[in-house]
């Protein structure tokens, strides 16, 4: 039987004995006679062998297995421990090889050494191999449904922490730093591998699983005010403002300075008060909405058209950088430099302290995210028999439907770790056993299931139920209300449609959408619907004769039709500006939109 042979997807010839060919190819590769970058895949059904050596393939390392015996032996492990050999030595010795997707199709890979049989071709280096970096950071992940582990791993990417030690000289966009990050008590193997001690991203909190007056229902959490005062979840938000002195045609340039009062668009003296002589704000200045950070003026926009009519000399435009709507903070760092074109470039970094408030998002590492629902004074927090007040109260209703057992085990693990003064290993599939943790907790003088007698913080009464209290690693996520809160009654509108602008940055309106509109119709609330949608209503004069929009001359206080003249009936109607706009668009298409007016009632 002849099998087609493809090299990087191109046909190169036929092979008579495919099995032998592949066998030889692999053994030559393991010997090092063929580059280890090559992979060979055999599709028996299609009668195709494909050899791949191109770049960009995802490949992963596996231990080679021969006759059910892994090539990695005790000897190798000992040598590795003594640092006598390394990764490349193992590859040269044919102990480890990289497979790509095509070759993996023909491999039978054992998950662990225990299940090895003679048919297996490869062995996973560790079962953790099936996870990515952040997924490996979920402790006890093998006790929790996959979707939750996934969420837990995604949440960790959004956690605030200590991202880089040189943050003071960096001008990164949109950066958060957690003030007092801690290394987790319950760790996985991956924490040590990726250097968690240098880049921690959360804090170990005392968590009680109970209700608190319903303020933690629907995934909300209750936080201890005392803990916040001691630094829980405190972070700093950094954001740079950047502007450059641009050059325009005709030798005109922007100028960074305090603008003159004659400048077009001059704000007010108050807004420029924080600028120094060079037109740039000074470090440690407290700023709030509207304050100018960098004063700048630009040359007039249409130079030629102004020359003839403008009596005064062409005035310059104001183009300063100001603190945008709803923001505040302190100037942290001022940098004056040059950009690639050699223009003056000014960057000002603004810093703002973020203390946890109602609406900030927190999560454990098990996809149990929640928003702060209430901040309680420490005096009102429940306390245990030994006098511990929890930092955070988590609702028990988050557990049954989601089945995040790892969350509960971490609570126990964290408690053991905190009491025994050691780290707990929560590596997926290799973690410390729950029963061992429980026994240790018992020996430390607590109930083995983690529950404790807890007293009501306000009345001092003992709760009749025992409350599950433990320690766990909580993360503050980058979604904070301060960056998102938004409301509007009146505000800016778009030039073209006269409808409200969109988005928080533009102080936009909150859209009453199509489906929301339908609810008004369903209730028959016709006039309420009209009122909701009248943000762009206008009074339009309409010529009764030709049915087109007429002109109102406010100066002479009379209306006339540009087509039919003065001697026609002109009526004012109230319609949405967007409709007037579409009529204009029809006209531009050569369609005559004639309006016939009658009295509705």
């Amino acid at each position: 039987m002849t099998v087609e042979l493809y090299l990087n997807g191109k046909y190169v010839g036929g092979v008579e004995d495919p099995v032998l060919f592949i066998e030889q190819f692999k053994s030559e590769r393991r010997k090092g006679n063929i580059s280890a970058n090559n992979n060979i895949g055999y599709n028996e059904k299609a009668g195709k062998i494909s050899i791949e050596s191109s770049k960009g393939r995802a490949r992963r390392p596996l231990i080679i297995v021969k006759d059910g015996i892994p090539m990695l032996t005790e000897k190798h492990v000992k040598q590795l421990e003594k640092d006598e050999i390394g990764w490349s030595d193992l590859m040269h010795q044919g102990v480890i090889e990289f497979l790509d997707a095509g070759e993996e199709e023909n491999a039978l890979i054992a998950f662990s050494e225990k299940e090895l049989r003679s048919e297996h071709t490869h062995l996973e280096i560790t079962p953790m191999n099936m996870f990515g970096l952040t997924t490996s950071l979920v402790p006890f992940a093998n006790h929790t449904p996959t979707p939750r582990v996934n969420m837990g791993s995604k949440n960790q990417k959004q956690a605030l922490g200590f991202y880089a030690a040189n943050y003071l000289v960096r001008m990164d966009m949109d950066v958060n730093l957690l003030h007092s990050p801690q290394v987790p008590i319950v760790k996985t193997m991956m924490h040590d591998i990726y250097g968690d001690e240098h880049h921690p991203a959360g804090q170990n909190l005392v968590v009680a699983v109970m209700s608190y007056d319903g303020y933690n229902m629907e995934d909300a959490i209750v936080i201890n005010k005392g803990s916040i005062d001691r630094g829980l979840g405190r972070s700093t938000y950094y954001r740079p403002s950047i502007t450059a002195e641009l050059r325009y045609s005709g030798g005109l340039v922007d100028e960074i300075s305090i603008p003159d009062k004659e400048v077009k668009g001059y704000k007010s003296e108050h807004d420029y008060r924080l600028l120094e002589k060079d037109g740039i704000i000074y470090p440690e200045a407290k700023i709030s909405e509207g304050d100018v950070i960098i004063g700048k003026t630009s040359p007039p926009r249409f130079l030629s058209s102004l020359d003839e009519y403008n009596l005064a000399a062409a005035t310059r435009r104001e183009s300063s950088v100001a603190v945008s709507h709803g923001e505040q903070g302190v100037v942290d760092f001022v940098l004056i430099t040059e950009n690639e074109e050699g223009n003056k470039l000014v960057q000002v970094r603004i810093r703002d302290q973020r203390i946890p408030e109602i609406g900030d998002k927190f999560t454990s590492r098990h996809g149990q995210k929640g928003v702060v629902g209430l901040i309680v004074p420490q005096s009102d927090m429940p306390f245990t028999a030994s006098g511990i007040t929890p930092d955070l109260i988590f609702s028990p209703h988050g557990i049954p439907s989601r089945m995040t057992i790892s969350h509960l085990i971490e609570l126990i693990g964290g408690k053991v770790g905190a009491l025994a003064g050691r780290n707990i290993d929560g590596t997926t599939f290799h973690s410390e056993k729950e029963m061992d943790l429980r026994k240790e907790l018992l020996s430390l003088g607590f109930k083995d299931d983690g529950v404790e007698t807890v007293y009501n913080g306000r009345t001092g009464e003992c709760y009749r139920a025992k409350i599950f209290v433990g320690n766990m690693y909580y993360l503050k996520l980058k979604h904070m209300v301060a960056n998102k809160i938004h409301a509007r009654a009146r505000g800016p509108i778009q030039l073209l449609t006269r409808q409200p602008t969109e988005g928080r940055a533009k102080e936009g309106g909150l859209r009453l959408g199509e489906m929301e509109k339908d609810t008004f119709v369903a209730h028959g609330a016709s006039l309420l619907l009209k009122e909701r949608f009248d943000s762009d209503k206008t009074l339009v004069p309409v010529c009764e004769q030709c049915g087109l929009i007429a002109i109102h001359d406010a100066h002479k206080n009379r209306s006339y039709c540009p087509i039919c003249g003065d001697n026609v009936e002109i009526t004012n109607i109230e319609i949405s500006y967007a409709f007037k706009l579409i009529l204009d668009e029809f006209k531009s298409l050569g369609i005559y939109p004639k309006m016939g007016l009658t009295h509705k009632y």
Partner: protein
Amino acid sequence: MTKEYNKYKGRLPSNVLEEVREKTKGMPEGRVNNILKEVCSEYNKARVEPGESVGLVGAESIGEPGTQMTLNTFHFAGVAEMNVTVGLPRIIEILDGRKKIKTPMMEIFLNKPWSNGKDIRHLALSIKETTMKEIMTDLAVNIVESKIELRLDNAAMKDVGVTPGNVTEALGKQLRGVSIKKKDDLIVIKMKSKEGSVGDVSKVKEKIKDVFVRGVKGITQVLPVKRNDEFIIIAAGSNLRDVLPLKEVDETRTITNDVFETAEVLGVEAARQIIINEVNKVIDTQGLNVDLRHIMLVADTMSFSGDVKGITRYGIVSEKASVLARASFETPIKHIVNAALVGEVDNLNSVVENVMLNQPVPVGTGLPGLVTKVK
């Protein structure tokens, strides 16, 4: 007594009136009168008020539970496994008015004695479309003599109740330019024309495979099941026109899930009922609860014109009176250009147009004319 009832004729639907008559048998006249009065006022309370936007409420009532529907296909357990489109895809299929549906199915009810289970398996197989490829084991081409030999599968033939005579007859009818001879299990097909090329022979060979031997065209699978003390046949594939005339079939109850086929064979009223039943079936199997009248309204809208139209831009949306309303749905340029060509007038009589103009919409409080004189 009948005088009392006659007074309410026209004010109450006849089936309600009939039910009251049944229940009040033998009651004194005054009491019957009071009951009728009460029923009448209850009936009037239950009626939709003028100015209620029934269409929109219907759309919301079907649409909201629609978001919770799963996209699973449902599997029949049994000898012949069948796939049925259910859930949201099926609803979309029905409401779009698709001409060709994904999984056409029939429920074939039977007359006595077949409904008691007589020959049920045999009958079912005789309805199933049987082609040559299912009842032959071997198909050999002899190019030199330009003939084809095929061997019949006796077991398979017995299963579907086909005799070799049926086979030769079917082959003879459906193949042209060949002579057919039978030798035991072997059927020899020889090209009549001498100069027939190799291509012709292989063409005939391919044709043979699809020669229709027995059954009803379009019925690909059959499954006899017992339902409420009688046997019925559930069939994958649908062919109402050819199934109904069969003497074993109860033509009064046999149905298909193909709306268009029903409309063609049984008329538009039947199609309307199929739409209602099929939509309702999906909603029921998903464990949701939608008032039947919402679905009825949709079915009415789809079928009132005399033939079935889907809720698409080609279907009922294209029949909206207002240009602006049509333009606001899909393909606005097409509608506006066509309206401009013929000088269409938009009287602004429905909801969307009035929202566009920021005028009160003519529903609910937008219809003061219902309670007072406005002009």
